[in-house]
């Protein structure tokens, strides 16, 4: 069984000293999502699980100093998590050789399957040291990917603005979205910078708007689409819509899907003389 | 090849009916079906633009509206004056929503100006050299022709964007491919006097005389045109030119469709060449 196979692989990695720690999913009480476990001994691998509640993007833990202190890790990733890993690699945040990556072929998480999984384009990770399992439930037609966004964009700009005013008014600025994002790795986030206050930090709608615009745009052309932020939001703001908006624009304007090509140059910080400019007079 | 809309214009159904004969016969031989614009009206050239600017847009606009109504994406207008007026009006319409509205009211039909108007050369370009060559039955050997474009095939260049307005080569390209020899000469785009025939004949005779002389001096044994007015001035007026300038040019003036038709094996009568004023029969220098 796949879970056994995963444990076996991890046991060997720890036993032969390839890695010092396994970052994987551990069991949780029924009805709850799995939680991250950090296993340092071959015996410990029995804690590892693999099921449709392995929701978290564990890549986010790679940026934590306390995790780094444990030594070379092996990490369990799904295809969407892996895209974040590739982006980190492109942005010099990760020496690929210093991580052992265990890819899991993924049928999708959540019951029922999450939206991002129903339209998942990858399912099987591509750049891993080892890939376990195979896909048994393929994604629906790829065209479904932008359905939610397209539906949203049918609203008038005024309606969209009203929607976000209503949604963002509920934001409590807990920054869980930032915390779980594998690509939010700044040592000091600009919201924490007060001279000057580039982003209004007041606990107001203005501050919330500024924060969410910034968060979404800092992820533009980078976001792996793992939806960790959306899951993490305690008040249920649909951040996925903003991420999708950037992903779609990135794909349509630059034929680029972030995290799918380790060799590619990041989109921001490069340019093409032929980039479109019909909006510039 | 699909159907092409066809706007003959007044001249082709009047004194230049030889031209229409030639165009129709040649294109038929090339399997191009011409769909004559039903109930077309005069485009207003060459008088409307001098008397009433609005009318000079409205008359072509009515024809463009008919073309749109009758589903012609492309419209052949073998008379360059007609095609220029149609293109000019079409561009003005396409550029201005206000004008579209106004003209739709005046001409009593919706009009957008999106119809593509072609001159005679363009229709052959569209057919393409390979297809033309493949259809040749009698190569134009022995023909040493001066290609005469006159004014309005290439001018105003900013509007028409057809060929090089100073050194055009499109007719040469076609005729060379059909076996003719074309001469390099200087009056390809000089004016022949155009519509002044009636009101100011002297001018026409002077200008046409120069054109004929230069073509002959550069070794042409005939001239090819793609304009009814050019044909009238260069062909019909040769006798008057002789009277005035004392030079008998005796040059045959062909329409482009004449020479192509001849190459395709059509006879002179079918093409209406026998209706020209200067006609050389079997013993002509052109051996056609």
């Amino acid at each position, binding site marked *: 069984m796949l879970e056994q196979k995963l444990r076996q692989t991890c046991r060997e990695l720890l036993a032969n000293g390839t890695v010092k720690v396994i970052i994987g999913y551990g069991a949780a009480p029924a009805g709850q999502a799995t939680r991250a476990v950090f296993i340092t001994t071959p015996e410990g691998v029995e804690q590892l699980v693999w099921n449709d509640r392995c929701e978290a993007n564990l890549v986010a833990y790679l940026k934590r100093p306390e995790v780094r202190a444990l030594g070379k890790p092996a990490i369990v990733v799904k295809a969407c998590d892996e895209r974040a890993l590739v982006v980190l690699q492109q942005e010099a945040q990760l020496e690929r050789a210093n991580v052992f990556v265990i890819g899991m072929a993924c049928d999708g998480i959540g019951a029922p399957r999450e939206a991002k999984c129903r339209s998942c384009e990858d399912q099987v990770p591509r750049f891993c040291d080892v890939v376990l399992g195979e896909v048994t439930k393929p994604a629906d037609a790829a065209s479904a990917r932008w359905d939610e966004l397209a539906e949203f964009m049918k609203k008038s700009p005024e309606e*969209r603005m009203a929607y976000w005013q209503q949604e963002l008014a509920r934001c409590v600025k807990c920054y869980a979205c930032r915390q779980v994002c594998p690509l939010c790795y700044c040592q000091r986030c*600009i919201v924490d910078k007060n001279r000057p206050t580039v982003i209004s930090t007041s606990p107001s*709608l203005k501050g919330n708007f500024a924060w*969410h615009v910034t968060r979404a745009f800092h992820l533009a052309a980078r976001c792996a689409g793992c939806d960790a932020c959306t899951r993490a939001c305690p008040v249920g703001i649909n951040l996925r819509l903003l991420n999708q*908006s950037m992903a779609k*624009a990135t794909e349509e304007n630059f034929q680029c899907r972030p995290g799918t090509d380790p060799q590619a140059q990041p989109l921001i910080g490069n340019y093409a003389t032929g980039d479109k*400019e019909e909006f510039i007079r | 090849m699909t159907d092409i809309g066809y706007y003959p214009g007044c001249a082709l159904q009047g004194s230049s009916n030889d031209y229409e004969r030639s165009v129709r016969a040649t294109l038929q031989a090339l399997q191009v079906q011409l769909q004559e614009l039903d109930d077309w009206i005069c485009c207003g050239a060459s008088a409307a633009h001098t008397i009433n600017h609005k009318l000079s847009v409205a008359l072509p606009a009515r024809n463009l509206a008919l073309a749109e109504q009758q589903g012609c994406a492309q419209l052949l207008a073998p008379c360059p004056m007609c095609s220029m007026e149609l293109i000019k009006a079409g561009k003005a319409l396409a550029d201005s929503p206000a004008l579209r509205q106004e003209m739709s009211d005046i001409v009593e039909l919706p009009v957008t100006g999106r119809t593509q108007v072609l001159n005679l050369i363009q229709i052959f370009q569209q057919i393409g050299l390979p297809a033309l060559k493949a259809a040749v039955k009698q190569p134009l050997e022995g023909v040493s022709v001066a290609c005469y474009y006159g004014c309005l095939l290439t001018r105003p260049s900013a509007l028409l964007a057809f060929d090089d307005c100073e050194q055009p080569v499109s007719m040469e390209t076609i005729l060379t491919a059909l076996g003719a020899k074309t001469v390099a000469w200087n009056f390809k785009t000089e004016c022949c006097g155009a519509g002044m025939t009636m009101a100011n004949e002297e001018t026409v005779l002077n200008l046409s005389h120069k054109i004929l002389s230069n073509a002959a001096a550069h070794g042409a044994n005939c001239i090819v045109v793609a304009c009814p007015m050019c044909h009238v001035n260069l062909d019909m007026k040769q006798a008057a030119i002789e009277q005035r300038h004392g030079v008998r040019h005796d040059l045959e003036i062909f329409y482009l469709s004449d020479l192509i038709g001849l190459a395709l094996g059509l006879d002179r009568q079918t093409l209406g060449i026998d209706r020209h004023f200067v006609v050389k029969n079997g013993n002509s220098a052109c051996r056609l």
Partner: protein
Amino acid sequence: MSAHPTGVFEPKVIAYVCNWCTYLGADLAGTSRLEYPANVRIVRLPCTGRIDFNLLIKGFEVGADAILVSGCHPGDCHYTSGNFHARRRWILFRQLLDTMGFDMNRIHFAWISAAEGKKFQHVLTDIVEQTRRMGPYAAYSKICEEVSC
């Protein structure tokens, strides 16, 4: 920016411009005495590449009814490629603003060279007149007034 004494709506327009092309284009409009509405406040930056997206948000926060971002034409950047980098960011940023329901008629981008004093005049006049017709940018000022927590 002080409200107009008569109480008539006067649009507030902030223009983020590069030092070498558009700023000089505005200078040229001046030396050529090309008149345009007095509603624009120019913020001079060395290059469009320097203009970060937070500045646009900040502009709306301080009550701008429209914002212009303008620099050198592609290929003419004083720093060779700052404007190319900027253009790429704008392509994406506009999409984000659009998704969030910002009024895209209030965010303008232009290439205006040092020689285009006339273009500066036309673009600015056009923006101010368009904004005047649209009225104040109420949607965002509402955001700025409301305290949520």
